């Protein structure tokens, strides 16, 4: 029997209480293109991080060409012949192509780099491609994205790599570049290099892969011949899970239109987005990472420039700065709470009240005591686990941080809430609380307040189907028509998100 190029056996990995990978078996033959597919969060990246030595498995074994393989760090993985090409390129833009290819393993004598040999070895690695744009002397920043990607691949090949992992390699490539990349993958195959190909785009997977393995919730659903399944069947295997009764949905009544977007286009993405959001409605936006969902929010909220199209918020027409948007009654929750959403070394109270520092004392004075009192209300209302409102946000857990970020929108009392991945990376209890809050916002409340309108982005389909009234799918910058959630299922959403068919 032929020895597998790579075998991962019975891999387990947990983060805290959550199991990210359960009993995963994964085999790649030499000279094979093996696709790894699954929803966001299914465990693909965790598996690849274990393969590349960035994480260590809690249990399980790995074999590389029959030899036991347990890399302690990414460098060791690279030396053993496992190369990774990530979605975000990791080149040093100011260095030349040759310097990048041999970075960290420059041939040297007495500390002096042998420039001739660097050049020769770079050329050797580059000859796989025959790309006119790439010469060893070119500075990497002068290259196009697709050419930079080739330099990364060349870097992996220069170490004599046996297994090459491509993580979403085509998400920033044009159609022609994708074809060229496929040609290169086929050429590498003939040299017996195994390729693990991770992609959301099922049509690409079927065009290039020999076999594919489907992951769902950290476990392997199965390994199949790539052409033995239809895209439909693949999607079914990716999502086949029950919807939990986690999602409250009270009786909602849609009121007047409060947000209207018409053919909105940003500088790059979105390319075209039109939708109407009513009071008392929760509208979900589904799509793959990189489809332009966050960019749509940023354009709406005035954080990014708009190329053309109309936005109408309540009675206000046209683009506006974030300052104006808050005044118009619109608030945004960022998908990246650490980098953008929260000022981590400021207190909970400061973070909650930052967008509207009014009403905390006479003559625009801000009395910290009143700020703290306002924050205390939300700490109780949202069940934020903390010692005091003066505690720094950075010391809270992810779920509690997210509640603080959400509390800012509630404290400001906005009418339109833009929520970007409101439950990403937080525990189930915090998720449940956030679903409750979203539902309460959209429902007619007892104290005569009009219901709010929620526009939310999520990559987690059960959540969208569970709490949204309508869902629209975004694919490569274009926002599709919003359909009532009860007419949809995960299967249809996944087909639309991967561009198989429109809703």
């Amino acid at each position, binding site marked *: 029997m032929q020895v597998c190029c790579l075998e991962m056996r019975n891999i387990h990995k947990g983060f805290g209480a959550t199991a990210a990978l359960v009993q995963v078996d994964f085999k790649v033959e030499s000279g094979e293109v093996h696709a790894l597919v699954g929803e966001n969060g299914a465990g693909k990246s965790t598996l690849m991080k274990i393969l590349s030595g960035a994480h260590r498995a809690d249990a399980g074994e790995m074999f590389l060409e029959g030899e036991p393989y347990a890399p302690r760090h990414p460098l060791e993985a690279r030396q053993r012949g496992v190369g990774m090409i990530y979605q975000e390129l990791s080149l040093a833009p100011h260095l030349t192509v040759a310097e990048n290819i041999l970075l960290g393993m420059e041939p040297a004598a007495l500390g002096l780099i042998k420039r001739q040999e660097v050049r020769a070895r770079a050329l050797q690695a580059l000859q796989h491609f025959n790309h006119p744009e790439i010469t060893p002397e070119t500075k990497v920043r002068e290259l196009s994205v697709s050419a930079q990607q080739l330099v990364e691949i060349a870097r992996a090949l220069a170490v004599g790599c046996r297994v090459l992992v491509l993580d979403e390699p085509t998400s920033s490539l044009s159609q022609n570049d994708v074809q060229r990349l496929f040609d290169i993958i086929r050429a590498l195959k003939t040299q017996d290099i195994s390729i693990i190909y991770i992609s959301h785009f099922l049509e690409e997977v079927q065009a290039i892969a020999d076999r594919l393995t489907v992951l769902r919730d950290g476990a392997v659903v199965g390994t199949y011949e790539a052409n033995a399944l239809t895209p439909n069947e693949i999607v079914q295997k990716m999502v086949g899970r029950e919807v939990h009764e986690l999602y409250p949905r009270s009786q909602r009544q849609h009121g007047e239109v409060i947000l209207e977007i018409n053919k909105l286009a940003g500088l790059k993405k979105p390319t075209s987005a039109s939708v109407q959001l009513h009071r008392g409605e929760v509208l979900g936006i589904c799509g793959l990472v990189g489809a332009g969902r966050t960019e749509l929010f940023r354009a709406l909220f005035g954080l990014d420039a708009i190329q053309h199209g109309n936005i109408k918020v309540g009675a206000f027409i046209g683009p506006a700065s*974030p300052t104006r948007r808050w005044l118009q009654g619109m608030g945004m929750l960022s998908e990246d709470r650490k980098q*953008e959403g929260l*000022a*981590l070394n*400021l207190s909970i109270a*400061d973070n909650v009240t*930052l967008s509207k520092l009014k009403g905390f004392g006479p003559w625009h004075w801000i009395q910290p005591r009143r700020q703290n009192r306002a924050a205390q209300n939300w700490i109780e209302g949202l069940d934020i686990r903390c010692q005091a409102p003066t505690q720094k946000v950075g010391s809270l857990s992810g779920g509690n941080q997210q509640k603080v970020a959400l509390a800012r929108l509630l404290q400001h009392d906005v009418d339109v809430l833009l929520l970007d991945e409101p439950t990403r990376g937080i525990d189930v209890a915090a998720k449940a609380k956030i679903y409750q809050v979203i539902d309460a916002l959209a429902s007619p409340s007892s104290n005569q307040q009009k219901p709010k309108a929620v526009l939310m982005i999520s990559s987690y389909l059960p959540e969208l189907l569970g709490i949204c009234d309508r869902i629209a799918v975004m694919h490569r910058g274009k926002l599709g028509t919003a359909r009532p959630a009860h007419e949809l299922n995960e299967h249809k959403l996944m087909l639309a998100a991967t561009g198989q068919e429109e809703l």
Partner: protein
Amino acid sequence: MTFHLKAINKFGPLLALVLVYLFFTLLNSKITSLTALETMMQQTVIVGVAAIGMTLIIISAGIDLSAGSIISFSSVVVAQLMNTQGFNPMLAACGGIFTGTFCGMMTGVLITRLKLVPFIITLGSLLIVRGFAKGLAGSMPINVGQTWLSDLLAILPPEHKWQLIPPGAWLMLVLAVLVSAMLTYTRLGRHIFAIGSNEHTARLCGIAVERVKTVVYALGGAFAGLSGIMLMSYQEQGDPTAAVGLELDIIAAVVIGGGSLSGGEGSIAGSLIGAMIMTVIRTGCQLNGWPPWVTQVVTGIVIVIAVAVDRLRHRSIA
């Protein structure tokens, strides 16, 4: 445990000041004499006033390397206005503060419009402003006659001893209290902290980041301008070559006082204490007859220790 850490956090710089002062008292008791205290006061005020403005800039995660140049420029402007234009001292002083404010505002506008890092912009304005100061003064100090401005930092005559410290020092303390209150109790103050802590969050929360930054640099310039008036009062001349490198003392005062160069942290009281620590070290070294190079080495060591302690403090709290 956490309580102790918090206390050290708050009173750390004050504790350091007491320790440094005790150290020099043990070496040489002259440092407790009235004359020594009065000289130290005078020297602290010049750095201290500018440090109030620099604290705002550093809390907003910025830096202003042109402070020393602005101080000198302002002293030249005031002297020039009084000497050749015959302005009364009050108007001349306003002219100095206006000059500082204008320089700071231009810096702020350049930083926010060109989207360049403050370090580079103010490195440029350090030279530009110094050049203008020299041009205006003809590269020579301008002597000023005795006016009430000269009394700002003068040693108090016996009949005024009840004031305890010179009027200039009182002015610094009053301004320190006002700016401290501004930082805690007003929107501008909270916005400055937010921008320094996380500029993206500030923008997301609708804070007019560019406007606030410009205001911060203008305020920084205004305080540097006022510091220039103090310098002129102390030296009784407008000197275009004075205060070279003083911006480093000012920045050091803020950092010793708990300001973080990555923004979001700092306090006015801390910065003033930082300025005092530096003066105590300088005076102490002089009184012991140590050569100037020792003073520099000691000051340098204290700055490094202050920042290292700051790091440790953060690690143990986080």
